[in-house]
């Protein structure tokens, strides 16, 4: 029985490669155009970042690497046993700098975001009715164009926010790259899963020292 691992070709890929190679594990070449690659007894799938936990939840992949923002948004029923310790970001609520939003939130508001579920949970917990405008990207321009009052998005440095006249109003959560594991694979392929986790943990600890 060999393992299938879902990856996305986004910002977390090079960090994953570093961890896998530090743990002595095979990894597909970064420039491959193939979407399914077998290397060194492991099978890798390249899928969209939001789809990584979906493949894992269905058991099509045994494991995957994705940001914690991704499985929070998809709500996938997967195991998340290992924080890979890189790709740290903040999920924030941001609004136009001089809008006075931070001082007094409107009681009904429109939020532009790629993370509709995260945003809904966040506002519901605060008793606010928010209209969610779901976008696929470039959400930073939405308030300036009148599409929304604020945004919920991931920020790494905050530069994109500043350059688009936005400021952080609240930090919703911090996120990082996580290993996600299918519930059935965790038992059915216990030895393989345990060996892979051991090597990745070893690679991670080696990386931080």
């Amino acid at each position, binding site marked *: *029985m060999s393992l299938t691992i879902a990856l996305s070709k986004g910002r977390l890929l090079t960090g994953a490669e570093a961890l896998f190679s530090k743990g002595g594990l095979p990894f597909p070449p970064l420039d491959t155009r193939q979407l399914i690659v077998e290397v060194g007894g492991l099978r890798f799938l390249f899928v969209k970042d939001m789809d990584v936990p*979906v493949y*894992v*939840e*269905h*058991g*099509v992949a045994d494991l995957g690497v994705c940001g914690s923002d991704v499985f929070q948004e998809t*709500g*996938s*029923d*997967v*195991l*998340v*046993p*290992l*924080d890979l310790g890189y790709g740290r970001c903040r999920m924030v609520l941001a609004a136009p700098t001089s809008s006075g939003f931070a001082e007094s939130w409107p009681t009904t508001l429109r939020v532009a975001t790629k993370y509709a579920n995260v945003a809904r949970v966040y506002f519901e917990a605060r008793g606010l009715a928010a209209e969610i405008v779901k976008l696929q990207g470039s959400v930073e321009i939405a308030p300036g164009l009148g599409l929304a009052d604020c945004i919920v998005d991931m920020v790494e440095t905050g530069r994109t926010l500043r350059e688009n006249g936005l400021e952080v109003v609240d930090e919703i959560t911090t996120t990082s790259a996580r290993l996600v*594991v*299918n*519930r*059935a*694979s*965790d*038992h*059915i392929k*216990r030895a393989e899963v*345990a060996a892979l*986790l051991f090597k990745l943990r070893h690679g991670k600890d080696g990386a931080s020292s």
Partner: protein
Amino acid sequence: MPTRLQLPQGASCFSFDEARARRALEAQVVSTFEGWGYDEIVPPLFDDAATFDPSLASKLYTFTGREGTTLALRPDFTSLVAKIAAGRLRHVEAPLRLYYSGEVVRYEPPRAGRQSEFHQMGLEFLGGGGPVADIEVMAIAIECLEAVGVTDFVIALGHAGVVTSLLDEAGFPVEDSRRKVVVKSLSRRDPRAVADALAGVGGSELARLALVGLAEDDGIRLSLDQARTALGGIERARAALDDLEAVTNALEDAGLGGRVALDLSESRGLDYYTGLVFRIYGAGLGFDVGGGGRYDSLLGRLGRPMPAIGFMLGLDRLALLVERQLGGGSGEAAPATPVAGETLGRSLQRARDLRSSGRRIRFGGVA
């Protein structure tokens, strides 16, 4: 003509070979239940909404009865069977070994392996206490999978008493909402989230460390010996581990040791579990095909205190698992013999002859 031909999202529908394969599977499972001396119970399709476990409240399909009471379509069988045992069947002497097979409905957002309407086949051993009943139910679960030809499967075994006693020792009051956060994080096996949820709780350091340890990949989660060393100081946790050991020892003695794997992080979420809990996983299916557990306090709340344990298999998931492990084609019909004669009467006579010999026919009338 209806304006909308598609069925509502989450509704299930099967036909032809698929429906036939499901019937065959159901028959094999039911015959296993019968073989272990269980009797069928056919509970109502709906009952007072209050009958069902509160953790399912947000998933109920409810409607208003003639008298203005709120009714709900059954979201599971256990609470319903327990209520009937405490009420209508109260004069039947315990233990009661009951099985059921039928549809349940739950409002579920579309997810892997989840429909709103699905078929559960399960049993409840009411009055069955201790490891002897635990072992019986585990053995039946194993035999059901073997009976339908599934060879590659594992039963992940835990004990609600481990997690519950650790939560108590960690200093959470019984109704503390943070308990649920810990249980959920534990179920996702997220050590960091467990540690975060435990921050600021004043109880035993040992219990807090053990809870985080249970979320980790190996160690006390998977080994009775390691769990004993770490949790032995907590009496109720030790009692839970003794229960588990009795069950795993008996299964090993019977040559079934390879069928079970310990997973002490497993507590199955539902509040009514008090002892052994398990989920069944099969190779090729990414989610559990069924599961069960001990619920010793539910019948007491209904006025007929007795221990109880039950388990169920999802027919839809089992069908998928069988297809993945054995390939398709199991629902193929026997070939049908076309029947036609010179007159309708002749034709009918021939049809009845063939039928009496058990043949599948296709009636054609006059040739």
